[in-house]
């Protein structure tokens, strides 16, 4: 982590990871995982509940950020 803080791509990478956590928390607090008031639970593709969907999106964001940073910019390559 020290090496990441030492250059711009590393700082951007850490910022993206942090932002994804903040956005996930905001989504949860805004009720994205709850059933809509007077409505049914949201099921993506007919079976994926929102806690699953949000988590999968979160992992995909981390995966993409990781691939870009570790393949192009990681100082210990």
């Amino acid at each position: 982590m020290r090496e990441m803080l030492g250059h711009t791509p590393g700082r951007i990478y850490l910022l993206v990871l942090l932002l994804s956590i903040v956005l996930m928390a905001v989504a949860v607090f805004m009720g994205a995982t709850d059933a809509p008031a007077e409505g049914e639970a949201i099921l993506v593709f007919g079976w994926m509940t929102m806690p699953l969907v949000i988590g999968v999106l979160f992992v995909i964001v981390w995966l993409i950020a990781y691939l870009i940073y570790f393949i192009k910019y990681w100082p210990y390559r």
Partner: protein
Amino acid sequence: MVDLIVLGAFSLIIVAMAAYGYRISAKTAEDYMLGGRTIGLVVMFFFVLFAISSSWTFYGFPGHLYLHGPGYVFFIWGSVAGFAILYMFLGPRLWALAKINRFLSPVEALAERYQSKALRVILAVTMLAFIIPYVGVQPLGVGRGFEALTGMPLWVGATYTAVLLVILVILGGMRIVAWVNIFLGTVYVTALLGSLFWVIAVVFPDGGVVQAAQQILASEPAKLSTPGPQGTYTSVLVIGTFVVGLLAFSWPHVVIGAMTARDKTLFKWFPLLIFVFGGLFFYIIPFVWGSIVAPAALPGVTDPAEADRIVQTVIQTFLPRWFGVFVLMGVIAAAVSTAAVQLMTSSIIVARDVIQGVFKPDASDQDITLWARLSVIAIVVLSLSVTVVVSLGLGDEAMALYLTDVSVPGFAQWAPALVGGLLWKRGTRQGAIAGTLAGVIWLVLGLLVTNEAGARILLLDLHPVILTLPLNAIVYVVVSLLTERPSDEIEDVFFTEVDDFLRSER
């Protein structure tokens, strides 16, 4: 009878691998404890993934989802990020530091970083106190599986697992524990995924998981969203559960895995496997089991212990009996793969940090290897007390909550000293000792002191990590800033040399 023959053959494969490992091992402490620091990417992946994917992923996790809806899955999202954090941020430095200085345990590395024998004892005792009961949860899980499938008492399955563990760890050491995890992991994934597909085909032939989800939507819609049918997973608890999952970077049996790596390129590629195979594939299997398939196939279970067994009950209800034996083999695989790594970690801490670090500083390589092997037996006997307690009806906390409410908060108490020791030059011995002690004492008292209603009053009835970890971290930082900064020599050895090594090593 056929059950016993199959399980006997399964055990023989594990014992044979352990014996082979004993034959080829270099008979040094480094080889026994860290696999000679030669673990490559693929072996490391199976080693770590199935070190963390215990029988909890078969019993506790789906059982909790079954009762409380999908909110608990945020523990998994946090854990995936936590393991990635360990291997992206901390792993390379810990690996380099241990390799340069021949450290055999992460506790030893921190004790040297902070120049403190007292801290070594505090961290060793804390890690052992929280890891040994968790080792005991694994034989308990298998005991429940045996009980449900064969009707045999709980202790039979638990003892079977314990014996298997002792043989594997004593003979094989870390390298074979890692290799065996490939075999065990393959068995487990096949059993868990195979049973899921088969049950879906049998019970929901017209629409698969969509049909199952629609059935729940019609009967118990609260099980498909937060806060769940009992209103448990509020937004605050969901995020709290995620944060508890993030602390996976501090699980000692996962941290030690980073020290066994062959080279630094492992840290470049390892997170890819965590995200793709772990986050987007493996952990989704028990999630679908616990939150969609089991509630639709067998609704109405309300008892936590029965919910813990729900996946197995569904399998036994809808699939042929012979497949139940295969699934039990998968559960044993999951339990053994985790408990073996935890046992290795515990025995290393006992031998290297307690016995050599405190009582016998002049112990030879052979001595500490012998002590590590002997401590395996002692730890297994101690950990079986968990099964005894449950068998006697003295306690039966649902498995899911044992991991997240007791073990994880305990493991987390070395996180400030660990992160600070590796990343913050200003962290001092006094800060590490004061912070760790403050967190551990509050945690232990908080877990023990309850009111008549069972609420943990010293923890304000919040999750055990919410108050104790911030206190630990704040005390660590404040005391470090108020005390004399570590010497230049410490900075050279633990920061400059590590940086140079990582930048130059091919």
